[in-house]
């Protein structure tokens, strides 16, 4: 029971330490994810502006493929996405309002062509978290209140997760070791010292018996030597304590 209690205490302590490190990891991960969200939204805005320009020039042209060629010539899709560095967007799409309204395509938008956060198209839950972020930005043509279409950008969160884990892994390991060390020091600090009660005696009977035997043997040995050396026979008995006298 004693060992089980100690074992459970150790397990509990490790769980607390792991929870703390996990919370720290989630905090780091969320920080990076927020940066990624901001970047995705900014990119969607830039592409939406370009889409407005392009589709105003070439009206009645419902070809997103030609728009991508235009975008590549004007700015360069690679240049646009280079700012992401770690996890560039995986999918870049232009959907037209007419296609969405007719139900030809699922854009993950509501009736106003704004991002529908509840749409399953905008989520990809794996490993217990949503590992996809979708930025949707509607674009308008001049003199029109309703959007002409939407720009949709899909980004994966998995590279962020892996990067946070790999760049902070050593830090987490050392934090784990340091926290364990601190917990051990704390245990040493609060550990109760056993008081030595001299009145009751602090040795077991068997130990005391063996000490007595040793004392007797040593006394005999010294006495033997004293009898051989008559010139020093008067002095040496002083360093032998007779503990039997106490009793």
């Amino acid at each position, binding site marked *: 029971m004693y060992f089980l209690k100690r074992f459970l205490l150790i397990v509990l302590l490790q769980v607390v330490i792991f929870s703390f490190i996990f919370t720290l990891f989630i905090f780091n991960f969320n920080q990076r994810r927020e940066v990624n969200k901001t970047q995705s939204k900014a990119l969607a805005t830039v592409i939406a502006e370009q889409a407005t320009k392009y589709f105003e020039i070439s009206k009645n042209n419902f070809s997103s493929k030609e728009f991508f060629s235009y975008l590549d010539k004007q700015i360069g899709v*690679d240049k*646009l996405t280079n700012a992401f560095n770690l996890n560039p967007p995986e999918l*870049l799409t232009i959907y037209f309002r007419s296609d969405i309204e007719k*139900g030809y*395509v699922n854009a993950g938008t509501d009736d106003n062509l704004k991002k529908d956060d509840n749409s399953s198209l905008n989520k990809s839950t794996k490993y217990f978290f949503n590992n996809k972020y979708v930025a949707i930005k509607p674009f308008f043509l001049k003199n029109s209140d309703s959007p002409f279409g939407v720009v949709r950008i899909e980004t994966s969160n998995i590279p962020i997760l892996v990067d946070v*884990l790999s760049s902070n892994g*050593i830090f987490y390991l050392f934090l784990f070791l340091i926290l364990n060390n601190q917990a051990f020091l704390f245990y040493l600090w609060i550990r109760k010292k056993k008081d030595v009660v001299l009145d009751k005696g602090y040795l077991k009977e068997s130990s005391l018996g063996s000490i007595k035997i040793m004392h007797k043997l040593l006394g005999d040995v010294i006495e033997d030597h004293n009898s051989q050396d008559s010139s020093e026979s008067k002095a040496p008995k002083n360093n032998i304590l007779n503990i039997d006298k106490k009793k």
Partner: protein
Amino acid sequence: MKKFKFFFILILFLVSCNSLNKSLNVQLLGPMLESVNEEGKLQYSGKIVNKSEAVVRNVLFRFIVENDQGSIIEAVTIAVDGVNGEYILQNEVVDFEFTLRSRPNKIFSKEFSIDYKSSGEDL
């Protein structure tokens, strides 16, 4: 012995962290561009770049689409060849393009992966 165990675990951890951090040798250059063609089907185009230090062969691009139930409704595998044949040189950028047969409104999830074999030959 305990010190040895500690350093062994530490090295193992470092190695595992390093393996996590490895960048994909063959990866997409920029995003894939999705467009709807004249037939109303989804068409994808993109670029693949070989960022490894060796020539890679048999580069396969796999694309899987699922419906709202999470069932796979279509899987596409295309071989991506370089300019000089079925291998891709260092830093070579290769274009690819494919079209899905499934109706776009039935598609709810898209996943892709790039498989390849490294020839181990440096340039």
